[in-house]
C-alpha cells in the first residue's frame, strides 16, 4: 500500500484521486446509503439502474467530455475557452432546428438524428474554428477571443430557431440523454467512454499529445523544431468544438427541448475547474488527460453530495466554493512542495516532479 502511495505521490493524477477518496469517505461515514444502487423500471418499461453513483456517472459524463477538449485547449494555448456553454446552446439549437424543420413542434422527426448531430458538429467546430483562428492566427488571448461567442452565443442559438422553443415528442430522441431500451446504464456513460477511447487512441498513436505540450511549453522553440504552433492551437479549439457538439446532443436529448438562456449555464467554469482539479497548469504545457476527466467526476460528485445533504439553496454555491478552494489550494505547486517536503522528512523521497 505504501509503495503505491509513494509511486502515486509524484504523479499528477494523485490530486483528483485524493479529492475523490476524501469525498467518498465523507459520504461513507455520514450516510452509507449514498452508495446504494437499485434496479428499477422506468416509465417506458425498461430496466434502469438508479442511485447516487449512477447520477454522478450520468451527469459527470457531460463534464468529462468537455474536460477532454478543454484540457487540449488549455495545454496548447495556455488559456481557456469560456464560450463552451454558449456554443453548447448553439449546437443544441442546431440539432433541434434540423430535427424539427420549420415546424417547432413536429409529430415526427424531419431528419435522422445522425444528420442533425453531424450538422451540429459542423456548427460547433465552426465556432471552435472561429475561436481558434482568433487565438492562433491573431494571437488574441483565449479568454478575450472566446468572450465574443460567450456574449453572443446564446442570442445566436435563439436566432437559429427563430426564438421559438422546439419540443420533440418523438420518444426515441430521449435515448442519448437517457437509456437505451434494455440497457440499464445511462447512455451518456457510453458516449463518454467512446470519447475517452477515441481521445486515448489519438494520444497514443498520433503526435497530438506531444505536439500540443510542445507548443504549450514553448511555441517558438516548437516552431524551430518544425511544428506549426498556430495550427496545433487551432486544432485544439476545433476538437473542443467537437466535444461541445456531443454535449449539446446529450443536453437537448435529456429534455427533448432547449432553453437558450440557461442550457449548460456556467458549464465552462466547471470544465475549467475540472482541468485545474486534474492538476494541469492553466498556463499551458504539460497535461494529464485522465486527471482532467477524473476531475470532472469529482466536481459532479461534489454537486450531487451537496444536493443529497439538502444544503440550503442560498448557501449552495458558498459550500461549493469552500470545497473548491480547499481542493485547488491543496493542489497548488507551493502547497504540494510543502507536502513533499514533509514526506521527505518522514522518508527520503526520490521521485518528485516539480
Amino acid at each position, binding site marked *: 500500500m505504501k509503495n503505491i502511495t509513494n509511486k502515486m505521490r509524484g504523479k499528477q493524477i494523485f490530486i483528483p484521486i485524493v479529492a475523490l477518496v476524501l469525498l467518498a469517505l465523507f459520504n461513507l461515514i455520514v450516510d452509507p446509503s449514498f452508495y446504494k444502487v437499485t434496479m428499477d423500471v422506468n*416509465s417506458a418499461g425498461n430496466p434502469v439502474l438508479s442511485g447516487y453513483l449512477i447520477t454522478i456517472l450520468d451527469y459527470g459524463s457531460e463534464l468529462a467530455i468537455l474536460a477532454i477538449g478543454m484540457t487540449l485547449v488549455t495545454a496548447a494555448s495556455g488559456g481557456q475557452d469560456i464560450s463552451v456553454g454558449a456554443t453548447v446552446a448553439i449546437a443544441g439549437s442546431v440539432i433541434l432546428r434540423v430535427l424539427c424543420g420549420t415546424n417547432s413542434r413536429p409529430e415526427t422527426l424531419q431528419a435522422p438524428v445522425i444528420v442533425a448531430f453531424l450538422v451540429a458538429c459542423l456548427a460547433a467546430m465552426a465556432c471552435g474554428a472561429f475561436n481558434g483562428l482568433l487565438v492562433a492566427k491573431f494571437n488574441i488571448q483565449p479568454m478575450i477571443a472566446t468572450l465574443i461567442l460567450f456574449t453572443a452565443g446564446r442570442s445566436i442559438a435563439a436566432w437559429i430557431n427563430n426564438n421559438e422553443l422546439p419540443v420533440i415528442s418523438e420518444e426515441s430522441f430521449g435515448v442519448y440523454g437517457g437509456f437505451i431500451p434494455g440497457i440499464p446504464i445511462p447512455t451518456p456513460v457510453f458516449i463518454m467512454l467512446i470519447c475517452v477511447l477515441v481521445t486515448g487512441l489519438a494520444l497514443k498513436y498520433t503526435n497530438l499529445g506531444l505536439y500540443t505540450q510542445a507548443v504549450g511549453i514553448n511555441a517558438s522553440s516548437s516552431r524551430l523544431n518544425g511544428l506549426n504552433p498556430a495550427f496545433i492551437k487551432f486544432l485544439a479549439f476545433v476538437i473542443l468544438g467537437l466535444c461541445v457538439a456531443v454535449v449539446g446532443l446529450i443536453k437537448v436529448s435529456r429534455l427533448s427541448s432547449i432553453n437558450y438562456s440557461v442550457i449548460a449555464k456556467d458549464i465552462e467554469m466547471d470544465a475549467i475547474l475540472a482541468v485545474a482539479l486534474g492538476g494541469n497548469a492553466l498556463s499551458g504545457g504539460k497535461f494529464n488527460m485522465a486527471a482532467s476527466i477524473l476531475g470532472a467526476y469529482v466536481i459532479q460528485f461534489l454537486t450531487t453530495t451537496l444536493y443529497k445533504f439538502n444544503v440550503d439553496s442560498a448557501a449552495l454555491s458558498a459550500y461549493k466554493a469552500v470545497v473548491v478552494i480547499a481542493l485547488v489550494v491543496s493542489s497548488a505547486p507551493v502547497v504540494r512542495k510543502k507536502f513533499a517536503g514533509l514526506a521527505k522528512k518522514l522518508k527520503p523521497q526520490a521521485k518528485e516532479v516539480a
Partner: protein
Amino acid sequence: MKRKIVSVLLCSAMVATMAMGCGGKEEPAEEAKDGGKDGGLIKVGIINNDPNESGFRTANDKDLKEMFTKENGYDASFAYSLKNDEQITAAQKFIQDGVDYLLLSAADTSGWDSVLKDAQDAGTRVVLFDRTIDADEELYEASIVSDMKKEGETAATWLKDQELSEYNIIHLQGVMGSAAQKGRSEALDVMAKEEGWNIVTQQTAEWNAEKAQQIVQSAIDAGQKFNVIYAENDDMAKGAVAALDKANMSHGVGKDVVIMGFDCNKWALEELLAQNWNYDGQCNPFQAKYIDEVIQKIEKGEEIEEKTIVMEEKGFDATTITQEDVDTYGI
C-alpha cells in the same frame, strides 16, 4: 506592429460584440424623428429587456410590437438591453428625440432618478411595465406589474383545494432573490406553515430544467416520499417530470405526483391538456393592453387614480383547461 494589429482586432471584436449584443437590435431613431411629421401619432420609446432572455420576454416583446403600431396611432421605437446603464443611455436618447411616452422595463431597480427627472423636464411621460424601480412615484405615471405573491397564493390555494390526504412537497425555487422567486416561495411557505404541509426538499434550480432534474433525482435516490412538485417555472417542472419518468413515478391528474408550474408556456399548457401536469400559474406578459389604456386616459386628460396597476393573472387546472386557453394564454 503585431501589437497594433492585435489591439485593432480587439477593438473591432468589442465593437462587433456590442453591435450583436444591443446596437444591432436598436431600431433606427430616424423613424421616430420622421414620425413627428405624420401628426396625430403618439411617439413612444420602449425600453425592454432582451427578448431572447426567456419565452416570457419574447411574448412580451411580441405583444408590445403588435399594440404599438401606426394603425393603432403609435409611432414606436424599441431599445433592448439587459444592462441598466445601456438602458439609461437609450432612455436619454429617447428623451432627446422628444418621445411623448417612455415605456420602461428596467433591468435594475436603482439608478433611474436623474434620467426620469430629465424626462419630466422634457415633458416626456414615463410608464413602467413589468418591473418596478426605486424612484419617487411622482416621476412616473403608472407602473404595470405582476403580483408574484398573488400568483403564488393562487397556486397555493389551488393546492389546498385539492384536499390531498397528505402533502409532501418538493419545492423548486428560481434564482434566489428574484422577484418571481420571492413572491412564489413566500406564498407556499406561508401556506405550508398554516396547513402543516411537509416540505421535503426546498432548493433552487435557478430556473434551470437540468438542475431541477438533478434535485428531484437526488430526492428519489434518497428514497424520500413526496407527492407534490411545486416548481416556480415551467422549465423546472419539466426537468422534475423527466426525473420522475426515469424512476417510473406516475404524475398528473389522478396519479401519484401532482405537478405544478408557472409562466404558462404553450408546451406546458399542452402538458396540462394531456393531464400530465396538474396546474400552471400565469405570469402575464400581455401588458400592452394595460399600457395602451393608461396612455389613452392621459391623452384624454383623465387622471390615473392608482399608480400601481396589478394585472389579472390566472391559474389553470388540468381538469378544466381547454384548447382555447392553450391558444389564448400560451406564450
